[in-house]
């Protein structure tokens, strides 16, 4: 139907037909085809590199493994039963969760003032400061972990200094335990936390703080009443990101933990490469995935409860 026809139909008091014209339908089909063509590489890539291995992993968890590395193709819940029944894995899971939570909380606390400062800075060197804050990302986590081993170790920088100063005689146990891993992870994930918060702080208009000030709020009350509530979504998102990164990281717990720190990631590694028990490693991986899911659900419930998704 041409435009003139349409006008005439309306003018005559008839309703134009609700059906789409053939031409319109053809153009819609064409649009849809373009969409799938453009999305195809990404979908294929994602399927091949992520979805398929994940499905394979899920299937693997239902096989039966043994300590001699033989994988029996079957369909059993043995692996899950073992993970659930053995209190050791409950402890590992709990430790993983607590480590992730501690690192996330510490990281947010340490990175928050930095992110706020970088957001607010009027300095000419602002971009340089931001680059400096995220520069550690240029070095691999492995190298930085070794750095922390040097700093935190028994004869390391901190203990050496404290002993030289005569403050302590026996070195503090800073490495090869959870303390070391948490210190290391907090520093390693700080740049992520800073970046996540800076993007999350977008709505934080300095005018709002000025308005609070003009209405009689001093700096502390302005922070508590205005800055903090408005920056909370960014801080929470950063916390979630760090938590997810922390519970899935393997290198730092392994190296800085010195074998004493047992979390899901190190456990999965040991099962998969040391004991070649792939089915059990797969089951533990699913456990880790569930932990992710629980955390994300918890995060969303929290966001909704605080009403900050508005």
């Amino acid at each position: 139907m041409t435009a003139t026809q349409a006008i005439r139909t309306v003018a005559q008091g008839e309703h134009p037909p609700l059906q789409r014209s053939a031409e319109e339908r053809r153009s819609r089909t064409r649009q849809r085809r373009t969409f799938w063509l453009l999305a195809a590489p990404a979908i294929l890539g994602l399927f091949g590199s992520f979805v398929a291995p994940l499905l394979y992993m899920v299937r693997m968890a239902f096989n039966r493994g043994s300590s001699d590395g033989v994988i029996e193709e079957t369909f059993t819940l043995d692996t899950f039963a073992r993970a659930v029944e053995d209190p050791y894995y409950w402890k590992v899971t709990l430790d993983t969760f607590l480590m992730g939570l501690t690192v996330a909380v510490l990281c947010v606390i340490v990175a928050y003032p930095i992110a706020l400062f970088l957001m607010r800075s009027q300095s000419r060197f602002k971009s340089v400061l931001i680059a400096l804050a995220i520069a550690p990302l240029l070095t691999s986590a492995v190298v930085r972990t070794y750095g922390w081993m040097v700093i935190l170790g028994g004869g390391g920088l901190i203990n050496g200094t404290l002993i030289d100063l005569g403050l302590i005689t026996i070195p503090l146990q800073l490495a090869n335990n959870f303390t070391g891993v948490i210190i290391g992870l907090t520093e390693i994930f700080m740049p992520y936390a800073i970046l996540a918060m800076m993007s999350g702080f977008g709505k934080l208009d300095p005018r709002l703080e000025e308005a609070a000030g003009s209405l009689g709020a001093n700096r502390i009350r302005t922070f508590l009443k205005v800055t903090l509530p408005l920056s909370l979504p960014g801080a929470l998102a950063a916390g979630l990101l760090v938590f997810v990164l922390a519970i899935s990281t393997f290198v730092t717990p392994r190296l800085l933990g010195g074998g004493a720190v047992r979390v899901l990631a190190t456990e999965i590694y040991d099962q998969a490469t040391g004991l070649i028990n792939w089915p059990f490693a797969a089951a533990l991986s699913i456990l880790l995935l569930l932990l992710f899911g629980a955390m994300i659900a918890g995060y969303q419930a929290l966001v909704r409860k605080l009403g900050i998704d508005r």
Partner: protein
Amino acid sequence: MTAVKLTLDRLTKQYRAGLAPAVDRLDMEVEEGHLVALLGPSGCGKTTTLRMVAGLMDPTAGRIVVDGRDITATPVHERGMGMVFQSYALFPHMDVAANVAFGLQMRRVAKSKQTELVRNALDMVKLGHLASRHPKELSGGQQQRVALARALVVEPTLLLLDEPLSNLDAKLRETMRTEIRSIQRRTGATTLFVTHDQDEALDMADRIAVMNGGLIEQFGTPADIYERPRTRFVADFIGRANLFEASVAAASGTGSKGETVYRIDVPGIGTSEAIGEAGLEGSQRTVLVRPHRVQVELGAQPGGLTGTIENVSYTGDALGYSIRLGDVLLQVERHTADGTIPARGEQATVRWAAEDAYVLPEEVRAP
């Protein structure tokens, strides 16, 4: 005589050494209950001045005195100013009632009293029914009213408005103008109002401070500013203006408001009359004639200045002419009812009553 509420004493702000000051030794006195507009082009220092009064910015030098008390060093949260920001700056995480209650909460007003005051303030801006909405759910005009209620509910020492109407559409701006003015009159809040819109300033203000380059060019009533500008900048910035240089000849009488009537000689054009302050005889001065005060007749007529019509613009209500008189292109505006529309290139004679031309007291600045 009314009391002086706010005094600015040589108030200066220089953002960086070596840079021209944004506000330069500003002196101003604001009377209790007045609405004063700080008017000027962007970068003239009007917002800087307001922010210094609010306490959001430290002056480089000078003093701010409110009710006889020097508050230059008082931090923002102890000044008790009510500020309305250009972007309104409503707290997005609080509903309308909580936004308005914020200042009362900071002053530790009792809860029940808070509720009552908030209700009154919202009723005043006709938003009582939207108390539980969030700022995001309000229109621009409504947000503006909330911001106004939030600033007024604490009975501020001064109400400070930073371009409060610039984010509204033209029609709403007119309504809000009247409304802000009537609320201001009712509450009697002494108000400083920053704007770059001369209509707004003329319409709303008791006094206007025209600012330019960090200085106050003129401080006076809207009529003063419009009719008796002191400088070429003010004459040009406020309303439409014909400005040309003339030699002021002998005084020839006294105007109705006591000004001196001078004969003026416009080089290459002819002589006419204008009024001005006493003692300007024999000087070179700029003369201001508003376009709608010029009378125009077609053809060369005796007793006026004759020129050629270069352009005619018809806008329905009015006819605008551009008439070439020597080096001067005179803008003239007449009601369409005055007669037929002349053609370009025709001759026309212009004249004005002595009272309609004003000799600026400012000396002609060397170009």
